[in-house]
C-alpha cells in the first residue's frame, strides 16, 4: 500500500526498471558530456559554442554521438542485468 502511494507520488519510481535504468543512464551521461564540455571550454579558454565543444558540426555527428551513448547504455544494461541489479517491476498504482 505504502509502495503504491509512493509510486503515485513519484512517477519516475513507478517506471519499469528496463525503462528507468536506460533513462537514468542517458541523463547521467548527458550531464557528463556537458560537464566535460564546460571543463574543456575553461581549460582551452575558447569561445566555441556547445555543439562545437561536443564535437558536433553536422547532424551526422549528433547522430553518432547518440549512437555512442546508446551503445554504452546497452552494454551497461547487460552488466546491470547479468549482475542481478534489475529488481522486479514495482506494483502498478491502483
Amino acid at each position: 500500500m505504502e509502495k503504491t502511494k509512493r509510486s503515485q507520488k513519484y512517477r519516475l519510481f513507478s517506471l519499469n526498471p528496463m525503462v528507468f535504468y536506460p533513462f537514468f543512464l542517458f541523463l547521467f551521461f548527458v550531464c557528463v558530456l556537458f560537464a566535460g564540455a564546460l571543463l574543456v571550454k575553461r581549460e582551452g579558454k575558447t569561445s566555441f559554442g556547445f555543439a562545437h565543444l561536443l564535437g558536433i558540426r553536422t547532424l551526422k555527428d549528433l547522430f553518432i554521438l547518440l549512437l555512442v551513448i546508446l551503445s554504452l547504455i546497452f552494454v551497461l544494461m547487460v552488466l546491470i542485468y547479468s549482475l542481478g541489479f534489475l529488481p522486479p517491476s514495482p506494483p502498478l498504482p491502483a
Partner: protein
Amino acid sequence: MTAMDLSFLTIPATIFMLLISFAWLFVLLSSLAYRKREEEGKLVDPPLFSIIIPAHNEEKVINEIINDFLQQTYPNLEIIVVCHNCEDRTFEVARSLTDKRLKVVELRTPQSGKALALNYALQHSSGDIIVQMDADNRVGKDFLKKVLSYFSHPRVQALQVRLGTKNADFNLLTKCQQIEYDLFGMPFWEGRGALGLSCTIGGTGVIIRKRILEEVNAWENELIEDFDLYCKLIQKGIKVIYAPDVECLDEKPPYWSALIRQRARWIRGHLRIINKRKWQPFPLFDIIYMLSPLFYFPWYLCAFLTVIYFPLKSLGINITYWFPPVHLWLFSLVAMYLFFLYRAISQGRWKDVLYLPLFFLFSFHWLIAFLRGFTIKSWGETKTPHGYTTG
C-alpha cells in the same frame, strides 16, 4: 515451444573477449616496470636524415612541420614533401619556403593511399635514416638530436617516438583522444617494451634505417600501411624501440564523423591484414594484438540475440544462451580504469582524472567504428581533415 541453446556461440565469443581484455590489462600493468634503455654509442659520421612527409590537401598545416625541421639543431637533413593527388594549394604553399634541403614533389596517381606517397618519397631520398612524419605533425627543435642519440647505437634499427596531441584543447573529443594516447596508448608501448616485445608502429613519428626499409620492400598500399610494415619487420626479426623522451605532436580528428571514419579505417585495415597474413607465424602477443578489433564482436552478438529473442519467441522458438564471465570483464575494466587513475595521478595530471567518466563514454565509439569498418573501401574516403587547432 521449441528450445534452442545458443551457448556454443556465446561462450567462445565471451572467452575471446576476456582473453583480449586481460592481455591489454597485463601489458598496461607491465608498463609499471618499464625503464628507458640507454642506447648510447659512438658515431663515426653524422648521418643524413631524410624526413619524408606525404601530404594530401594539407595547405593549412604543411608549412608548420617543414619549418619545424628547418629549425632543427641537427642540420644534416633533407625534407621531401610529396603532394599526393592534392586538390588544394599544398604544393604551392610548400614550395613557397626556400631552403636547399627542402624538396617538394607532386604525385598524381589513379589510386589513393599514403603508402604510394611514402614509397615515392623513399625513392627520392638519399639519407641513411628515414624519418616518416605526417603533414599535421609538430616537433621540437631538438627532435633529431634526440633521435640521433638512439641511432648512434648500431643495434637500433627502427624507432617509434612518443605521440602527443597537438589540439587537445580544441574540444572534448580531442581531449578524450589525448587521454586515450597518454593513459592507454603510450603505456601500452611501454608495457610491450618492459616485456621485451617490439613496439608497434603508430603511422607517424617512425624512424627507420633505409637499408631495413628496402630489405622489407617498404610500404604496401594497405588501409593501415604502418601495421603492415610492422608485421614485415617483426617477421624479419627487427625490433622497433619506443622512445618516450622524443615527442611528435599529432592533430586528432575533432568531429565524431571524422573520428569514426578514421577508426573504421583502422579496424577494416586490421581485418584485411589478419586475412592477408593469417597463415604466417607471429609471437603470441602480436596475434592477440592483431585480433583486438574482434573484441567488439561479442557485444554485437549479444545485441543481435536480444533483438531476435522476442520475434523468435512469438514463433514458438525459445532461445537460451549463456554469457559466462561478464563479471570478469567488469573486473578487467575496473582494473584498467584504476591503472588510468594511477597513471594520471603519478604524472601530476590531476585534471585528467576529471575527464575519466567522459573518456569512458568516448571509448564506446569503437562499437560504432567496428560496424562502420565494414563499409570502408579505400584510403581516400577516410582521410582525416587537418587544421583544427585553437592556437
